[in-house]
């Protein structure tokens, strides 16, 4: 632990130092000139954010803030300010001695006022022909989620974001663009500042650093061809803006709680269920009598004379219910004992930006600290990050951009995983104590695992420190003499190191012993040492170095009404990685957690390396006629080392067309309500080379090589190296191809008050890389490689409808968006012998094959009346057993009666509803988000004699006293034929939740000016504040059948941001 703290404090000191420097820089820059302040409004009187303001004939400039306010240092009060903003006509304002002014900019009606980042460039939104959605970083910072992925849900139509766990440091989301399109890898390509697939992904990017996120959903992604088949997420970080230095500090303090704590049976309920299970072991004929006996005397004499004691007597049940005997009959709420209320999380950001026409800078520092739900939690996440973005115009022709990111991700966990902890919490027996009345920890659930202990550092720790250094630089040169011709060279280097330290020590629990302490009433407790037999330490270290070098040549030319944009480029990418680990045990004491101090017996170590490479060529030809007729052709030619030389390269083209109907004379003159209307369509091919072994996250590389891998086996009293054939090689393996088509419509009505975006798509994936193990018999013994065998179609639509208006001082906007996607397997390897209704071909990917639930045999009478033959799955039917549907009608329940369903645990539809309002200095943002169409499998798992049941099961079960024809009898650790594999256990996980809410107040500028500040805002926001769902027992975003996972978080957060 010591080691980590030192590192952390060193980093902390560095951080402080940088902060001080930045603050000095900001305050030191206070000028002696005239300070001009003011506000820039649109015609409706609403402030316009991001207006560029430059003092004419100088290098001084600034931009307006989110409310349209600005402040600029002018050399004199007689100067002229040039104000420009996309979507508005540029204006020159003479100051004429004024130092405070309000300016109104006229709307440039032609423009949708937005620039969208697309592959290798930006485009005006009005000329975009692909299906591209985007969100501004300013929106994302309104969410208190510490993981960027969790800020995206509900904001981007067609992008499904499902958060599966809230564990600090491991709380990412599954992101799917237009659902699942292939049998294997469905992950979108993430491009950060132009560099694809950066180490660390998007999760841990500081939202405050983000300018915008664009998602390319269709052929627009073709320029990233090789890995773009699942869509592309483009993240652009903020860059410096011309103007005096501006320093913004923001602080967030949040409090997290689980969205759902599973409700489980209490001691009295659980023990009575254990009694029931005990009865169910008897022959059915004895059930009623045993039930009666257990309830009255707790002892049942069987017809054969053997006396059977109820596991819990009526007196026991009574004591569990009334709490009269805390030592002997506790009633423990395991979640309550383990969790604290309100786990804190905090975030600090300092951002400095400014610059001149020739040099602009942005420096951003972030710190976050996240605690877990547990009391005395060993789990936590800390992050330190710094980003510096520089832009310099070296001269008229050369421009340099540089970006550096440094980030440390510091994850701490106890030695037991969240899966284990929550398994034990869920299993936790309520009739056993978490703590004894005297405060000492009670016995384990199993394996020494008592949740109140293993969530702390009493068992040691499992720490992981990840360091990222990412640089990207580019040099852009305009070729003199040829207007519009540019060459840009790019180099990006990612370095990542992972350091793991896993320190396991024995811990102490207390069991009830025999007899009492001297006082005669306090029961004796016996200490037992649990966990490893002695302290052990594992250290691991790995490093990766990714290098991307690229060149792009572009040429933009307008000839009359014809505008051309040409671009061509190439990239080479290499990734090298290596790692090692070391292990020692037999530490003589837990006092020192260093490797050298470990015992010298059974030392162990390991290490390895990998490398991978890619080469890519790409280009774009754009053309438009008066921004009315739009056309774009994109291509990429890619080589990947995943494939052999012969099939290494793939060519992926895309074409996109657009027609701005509203630019046509006939429209302009006749349909004035619709002031902008664009129809667009695209079709493109994209590639995928990412093959994962089924149900793993292990990349299947070298499928074309005949190679042997290493293992070991015990021979002659020692472990010797062995070799196995890794696969039968597939020399023909090549790119998986996506052919994605899209048609869409963008419209603005009533001068932009109403906006409409509609998209419909059809994605067709062929050559899907998958394993042919469904039809090649196992008797071949082949370890099959991936082959280009699958075909999947995926269709759907998206919409985004917006409305914005104002009423006096109230400005408001409202929008709804949603996306629906449904895929279907057209072809893949499927066993020829399966009955038609079980075949996956023609059905969505990853569907369930289950028996159809058909009620419950309420009593013996119903069983006697039953005509169906269940003998293939159960020999003797008993009351409370589940009925199945005889799907094929042969009078027998056999595996042939299982049916493939249409649902999976990924939603078909996901959408959001945004509401924004501003009144004077108050602002409000509300985001509702929902999903539909997913089914989640809920299992009773290990519930039974080793673990507790959900309260839901207690309340709804079949019992001897209260036989149900709807819900089955409880089972012991899922040991009945109906405990799984049927659709009774599938539940809809449709939900709507208040994903995000923010209320803010800005202090009026008139007050702030006096203290030299330009903006101060206080706010409250929240994440997952309310949820309406059908799943009930777990969070609806969960994909865990038993609740053995760290639940999603609900966060309330208070923050302030101040700009100097």
């Amino acid at each position, binding site marked *: 632990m010591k080691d980590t703290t030192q590192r952390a404090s060193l980093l902390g000191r560095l951080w402080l130092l940088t902060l001080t420097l930045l603050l000095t820089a900001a305050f030191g820059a206070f000028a002696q000139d005239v300070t001009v302040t003011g506000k820039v409004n649109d015609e409706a009187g609403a402030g316009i954010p991001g207006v560029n303001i430059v003092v004419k004939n100088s290098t001084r400039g600034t931009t307006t803030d989110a409310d349209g306010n600005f402040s600029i240092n002018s050399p004199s009060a007689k100067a002229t300010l040039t104000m420009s903003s996309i979507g508005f006509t540029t204006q020159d304002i003479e100051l004429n001695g004024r130092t405070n002014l309000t300016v109104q900019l006229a709307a440039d009606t032609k423009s949708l006022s937005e620039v969208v980042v697309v592959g290798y460039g930006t485009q005006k939104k009005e000329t975009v022909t692909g299906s591209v959605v985007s969100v501004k970083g300013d929106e994302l910072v309104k969410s208190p989620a510490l993981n960027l992925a969790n800020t995206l849900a509900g904001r981007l139509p067609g992008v499904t974001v499902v958060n599966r766990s809230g564990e600090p440091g491991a709380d990412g989301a599954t992101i799917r663009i237009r659902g699942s399109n292939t049998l294997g890898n469905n992950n979108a390509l993430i491009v950060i500042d132009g560099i694809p697939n950066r180490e660390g992904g998007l999760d841990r990017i500081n939202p405050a650093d983000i300018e915008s996120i664009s998602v390319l959903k269709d052929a627009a992604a073709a320029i990233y061809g090789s890995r773009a088949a699942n869509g592309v997420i483009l993240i652009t970080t903020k860059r410096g803006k011309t103007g005096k230095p501006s320093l913004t500090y923001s602080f967030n303090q949040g409090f997290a709680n689980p969205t759902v704590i599973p409700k489980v049976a209490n001691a009295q309920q659980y023990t009575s269920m254990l009694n029931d299970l005990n009865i169910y072991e008897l022959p059915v004929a004895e059930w009623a009598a045993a039930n009666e006996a257990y309830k009255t005397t707790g002892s049942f004499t069987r017809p054969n004379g053997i006396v059977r004691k109820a596991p819990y007597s009526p007196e026991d049940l009574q004591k569990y219910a009334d709490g009269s005997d805390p030592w002997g009959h506790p009633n423990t709420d395991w979640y309550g004992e383990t969790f604290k209320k309100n786990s804190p999380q905090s975030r600090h950001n300092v951002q400095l930006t400014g610059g001149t026409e020739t040099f602009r800078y942005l420096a951003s520092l972030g710190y976050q600290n996240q605690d877990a739900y547990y009391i005395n939690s060993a789990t936590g996440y800390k992050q330190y990050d710094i980003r510096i973005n520089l832009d310099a115009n070296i001269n008229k022709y050369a421009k340099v951009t540089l970006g550096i990111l440094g980030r440390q991700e510091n994850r701490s966990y106890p030695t037991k995983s969240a899966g284990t902890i929550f398994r034990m919490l869920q299993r936790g027996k309520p009739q056993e104590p978490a703590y004894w009345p005297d405060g000492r920890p009670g016995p384990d659930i199993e394996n020494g695992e008592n949740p109140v202990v293993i969530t702390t550092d009493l068992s040691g720790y499992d720490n992981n420190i990840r360091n990222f250094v990412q640089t990207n630089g580019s040099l852009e040169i305009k070729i003199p003499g040829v207007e519009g011709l540019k*060459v840009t060279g790019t180099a990006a280097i990612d370095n990542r190191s992972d350091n793991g330290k896993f320190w396991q020590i024995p811990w102490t629990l207390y069991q009830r012993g025999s007899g009492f302490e001297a006082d005669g009433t306090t029961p004796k407790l016996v200490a037992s040492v649990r966990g490893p037999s002695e302290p052990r330490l594992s250290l691991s270290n790995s490093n990766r170095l990714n290098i991307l*070098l690229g060149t792009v040549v572009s040429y933009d030319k307008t000839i009359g009404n014809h505008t051309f944009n040409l671009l061509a480029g190439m990239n080479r990418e290499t990734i090298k990685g290596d790692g090692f680990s070391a292990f020692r045990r037999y530490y003589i004491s837990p006092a020192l957690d260093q490797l050298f101090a470990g015992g010298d017996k059974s030392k162990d170590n390991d290490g390895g390396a990998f490398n991978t490479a890619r080469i890519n060529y790409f280009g774009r030809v754009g053309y438009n006629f008066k921004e009315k007729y739009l056309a774009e052709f994109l291509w990429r030619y890619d080589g990947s080392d995943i494939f052999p030389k012969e099939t290494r390269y793939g060519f992926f083209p895309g074409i996109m067309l657009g027609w701005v109907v509203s630019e046509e004379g006939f429209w302009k003159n006749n349909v004035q309500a619709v002031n902008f209307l664009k129809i667009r369509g695209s079709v493109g091919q994209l590639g995928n080379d990412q093959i994962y072994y089924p149900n793993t996250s292990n990349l299947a590389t070298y499928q074309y090589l005949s190679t042997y891998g290493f293992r070991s086996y015990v021979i002659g009293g020692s472990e010797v190296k062995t070799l196995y054939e*890794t696969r*039968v090689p597939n020399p023909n393996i090549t790119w998986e191809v996506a052919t994605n088509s899209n048609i869409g419509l963008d419209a603005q009505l009533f001068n932009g008050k109403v906006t409409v975006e509609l998209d419909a798509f059809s994605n067709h994936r062929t050559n899907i890389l998958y394993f042919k193990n*469904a039809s090649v*018999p*196992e008797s*071949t*013994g082949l370890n099959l490689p991936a082959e280009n065998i699958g075909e999947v179609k995926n269709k759907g639509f998206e919409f985004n409808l917006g409305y914005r208006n104002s009423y006096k001082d109230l400005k408001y906007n409202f929008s709804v968006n949603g996306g629906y996607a449904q895929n279907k397997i057209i072809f893949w390897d499927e066993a020829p*012998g399966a009955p038609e209704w079980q075949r996956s071909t023609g059905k969505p990917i990853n569907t369930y094959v289950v028996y159809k639930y058909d009620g419950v045999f309420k009593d013996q009478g119903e069983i006697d009346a039953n005509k169906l033959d269940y003998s293939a799955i159960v020999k003797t039917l008993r009351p409370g057993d589940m009925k199945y549907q005889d799907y094929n009608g042969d009078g027998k329940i056999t595996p042939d009666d299982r049916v493939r369903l249409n649902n999976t645990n990924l939603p078909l539809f996901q959408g959001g509803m945004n509401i924004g309002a501003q009144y004077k200095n108050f602002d409000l943002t509300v985001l509702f988000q929902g999903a539909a169409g997913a089914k989640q499998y809920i299992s009773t798992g290990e519930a039974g004699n080793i673990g507790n049941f959900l309260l839901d099961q207690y309340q709804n079960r079949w019992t001897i006293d209260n036989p149900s024809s709807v819900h089955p009898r409880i089972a012991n650790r899922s040991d009945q034929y109906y405990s799984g594999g049927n659709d009774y256990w599938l539940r809809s996980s449709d939900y709507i939740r208040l994903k995000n809410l923010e209320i803010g107040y800005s202090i009026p500028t008139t007050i702030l000016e006096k203290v030299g500040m330009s903006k101060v805002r206080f706010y409250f926001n929240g994440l997952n504040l309310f949820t309406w769902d059908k799943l009930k027992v777990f969070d609806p975003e969960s994909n865990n059948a038993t609740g053995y996972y760290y639940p999603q978080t609900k966060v309330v957060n208070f923050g302030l941001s101040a700009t100097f």
Partner: protein
Amino acid sequence: MKKIKILALAFIAGLVTFTSCNDDFVNTTPLDQLSQSTVWSDAALAEAFVTEIYAGLGVGGFEEQSLSSLTDETMFTHPGRGITTITEGRSNPADIGWVSGNIRWDNMYSRIRATNLALENLADPQFPNNNNIVERLQGEAKFMRAYYYHQLARYYGGVPLIDRPYKLGEADYLAARNTWAETVDFIVKDCDEAAKLLDGKKLANGRASKEAALALKSRILTYAASDLHDVPTAKSKSTTIASATNPELIGYASGSRADRWKKAQDASKAVLDLNRGYKVNLTEPATPPAQGTTNYMNIALARNGGETELLFARYFINAKQENGGRIGLYNGPNGYNNWAGNSPIQLLVDDYEMLDGTKFNWNDAKEAADPYANRDPRFDATILHEGSPWKVRSNANLPKDPASQIQTGRYEVIDATGKKVTHFGLDTRNSSIEDWNGSYTGYYMRKFTDPNPAIVDQNTWQEIPWPFFRYTEAIFNYAEACINLGQEAEARDWLNKIRFRAGMPAITDAGQALVERFRNEKRIEMVYEEQRFHDARRWMIAPSTLGRKANGIQIVGTLKPGKTVNVYKYSKENYDYSYARFEIDPGKENRNWDDKLYFLPISRAETNRNEKLVQNPGYTK
């Protein structure tokens, strides 16, 4: 001038990448794997490949679920493992129940492919054949191929015989099942060749040897000669088998049974001639009886000379902590924080003879009152029962049982207030220690668990090897063949060697009585060694043995008048004990034999893939 400078800059920017237009750097090679050609041109690497083939043995029989729990030896405690699917006769091709990785169709064929690959590449070795390493590796590969086929054969019957490595893109992968006769011949041929290739080679523990090849041949020929695989006999004993469409897949439709027994006898004699057995030269019972117990334990624990019994085994070492070293945790008592997975049932306990060679009899009041006394010396080495002294309990549990004896009953004790209360044994399902892990039967497995108290089963791995073939099995095979060939005296001679070693008197039976005595002897001597599952099937006695309900013992200790006990300890002085047998509740495990269980079903997934596969009798599709 300026233009030139800028052009030069642009040129450099472009150069950075375009110089690397040569795409050689995309030809990466894996840094954690070796190419096929490298492996087969280096003897050490080729050896490593052959060594890996052994890994298909898994951890032998030391898995958490033991094959014994599918028989009348033990029952499995924990639900949800697919054990009762089989014991209750609910198996079907889509839900077979528990199938060990050691016999899974896909695993076996994957390893068979490896043997075929090895044999193909070793046929034309690309490395110097120093010390005849080529022949040795060929011998090991042949043995392992025979072994894996024998696994398939004894569970499934005749199977597709694949003797070459398939390649990707072949026109037809669908192989039909070979007949039982062809499958046996194939195994025997590989055994013969392996024995020849390995003759005279000294091989490290864990590798195949000539002895192993001979032992395998003895086993498969013994199986082949048995009732189950003689179609006329099998049909007469089972309507399910009588209705089989392709009986040649599971047995011999014709031919002389005597010839088959002769072949089995010869093969078994070849093993006996190795003179490897442990203490098989005794001419009278080992004395005192404790010596019989010790002898038996030396074999099970493979120590003090007992290791000479092992002809082929899976070894475990502490440095590589594999599940095979956790058998004590899997099966040990819950009062020691172990899991009591496979617990001996009363049917097994009752089959242990009295020390004098008579049958144990519940109707004999003396025996029934003290059922664990004066039994076959192997009993105490095999089963932990009420009162068995065992390892020292953990610090936390020790105060409850300072004597550290197994407690499987319920007893009267006097509490602090002087009241008579019930103490539930620490090793029962009413225990104060992990009750859900208690045995249902009142017994725990002891054989194969290292009794060394330093090995705390709940968190220490042991190093006892799993015996695939031991010398004694060949004795039983030989004796069985002798009985079937009418050479009863020879059979008795050899059986008595086994009994003398165990401290048991000679048997003198003949005819059917000898058959019964033989069967019981093998049941006792080879218990937990994956014999009973197959023996009960091939002798076709499964309906009357494996089909019986599992049972256990209820023990009640009543304080004798005037005795006071605060902390329970096994004592005939203080307690009157009563022992009552009971059947396991049907809701827990309702054993039910179904003739389809003679063979495993081929999985639904595999028959879906391969339409040529004929399913085993009694299963749909």
